[in-house]
């Protein structure tokens, strides 16, 4: 049976980027469909009726939602090339733990930095940097979280690289996490990553526009 793969996505979404990177690393051909989140397509609403969010992966007519679930699905189906999760159950649990941490801490505090002000924003910045430092610690001396090559956690975290410039405008964090910045640049040397991430300046422009729309100064 032919493999029909479609990705419903939105270009600045770090979650969408995870799927793009995974699909590229595995050499999977797919159709990319850009969604207008202010006017969601009938296909999106049909394929993700519960959350109505992107990204959504459609494989031979069946939809898979939630980026972490999607990346694991891709890894499990196309298991002949570029394994993302390690084989050892304990190493897998550790990778999943940190992926969950990225979503609960890095993404949440990063978002709060952009939409709050004053004390709340300062608290968010502190949490954001602390979370990145914990990840730096986890990386240790390895070139990638996956060891010698890119793995699951690298795919999960590296999309935030495209948002680095945007976060820097709110508060200097790159100086606090030089190892992580070096790691991200190393990941960007891989075409699957660089092709999947938008330019940092373009993301910054998007953030400015978004703030205007939501009336955030």
């Amino acid at each position, binding site marked *: 049976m032919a493999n029909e793969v479609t990705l419903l996505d939105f270009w600045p979404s770090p979650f969408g980027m995870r799927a793009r990177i995974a699909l590229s690393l595995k050499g999977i051909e797919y159709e990319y469909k850009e969604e207008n989140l202010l006017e969601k397509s009938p296909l999106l609403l049909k394929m993700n009726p*519960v959350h109505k969010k992107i990204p959504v992966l459609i*494989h031979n007519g*069946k939809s*898979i*939602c*939630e980026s972490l*679930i*999607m990346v*694991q*699905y891709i890894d*499990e*189906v196309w298991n002949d090339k570029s394994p993302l999760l390690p084989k050892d*159950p*304990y190493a*897998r*649990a*550790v990778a*999943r*733990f940190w992926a*969950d*941490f990225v979503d609960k801490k890095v993404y949440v505090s990063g978002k709060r930095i952009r939409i709050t002000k004053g004390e709340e924003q300062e608290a968010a910045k502190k949490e954001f940097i602390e979370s990145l430092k*914990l990840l730096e610690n986890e990386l240790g001396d390895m070139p990638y979280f996956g060891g010698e090559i890119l793995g699951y956690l690298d795919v999960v975290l590296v999309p935030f690289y495209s948002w680095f410039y945007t976060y820097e405008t709110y508060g200097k964090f790159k100086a606090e996490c030089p190892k992580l910045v070096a790691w991200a640049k190393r990941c960007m040397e891989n075409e699957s990553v660089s092709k999947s991430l938008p330019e940092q300046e373009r993301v910054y422009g998007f953030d400015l526009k978004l703030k205007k729309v939501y009336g955030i100064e």
Partner: protein
Amino acid sequence: MGDVSEVKLFGTWSGSPSPTKRVEIALKLKGIPYEFIQEDLGNKSESLLQYNPVHKKVPVLVHNGKPIAESAIILEYIDEHWKYAPKLLPEDPYERAMVRFWANFIDEKLRSRALVMSEGEEKAKLIKEYIENICVLEEGIKRDFSGKSPFLNGESPGYLDLVLGSSACSHRAIEEIVGAKLIMPEIHPLFFAWVTAMKNHPVVKETLPPHEGLLNHVLKYKQRTLELLNTKA
């Protein structure tokens, strides 16, 4: 290192419908012997802080000295390390994605803590939302798990049954505290049938607290939390 597998589970007091229960049931279903270490969340042990320095929460499974945190991740680890039956997750990648999707939904949308603590208008709003989310879950069970009976995992409870079960089986206590029915057989027939099957499963029954004990525990939790808020004010 000996051949004997050493398993420790750090968890909360056995009278609560917490994520710790999910792990306990899984260990029992697989027949894995373990040592339970009860944590007082108001006075966490050095060991817990050492094994889960990032979140400082329970449950934490420590297997031969190596810690794993977050109940859903622990369940996958248990299934991957102790590969024999009963399997907790399905083999097919698409079915696994479905199971993980609904587990996320449950952890995101069916949290009872805020509901239990709420009053007045806020409570009415949360009750309505909760029931709506159960309806979404009912639809999901119908659409994605029609072939599976009596549990979402088939013959034996699995990952999703355990993630959902630790709180769903305590619905009567929550309903009594908020003073409203949340799960109704007329509106949520599949979900209700599933809860009944769960409650009657011998391992689940012996692990989850009885209604009275649970009710008292939740009421005490609410009272303690209110006292803490009042002393702060």
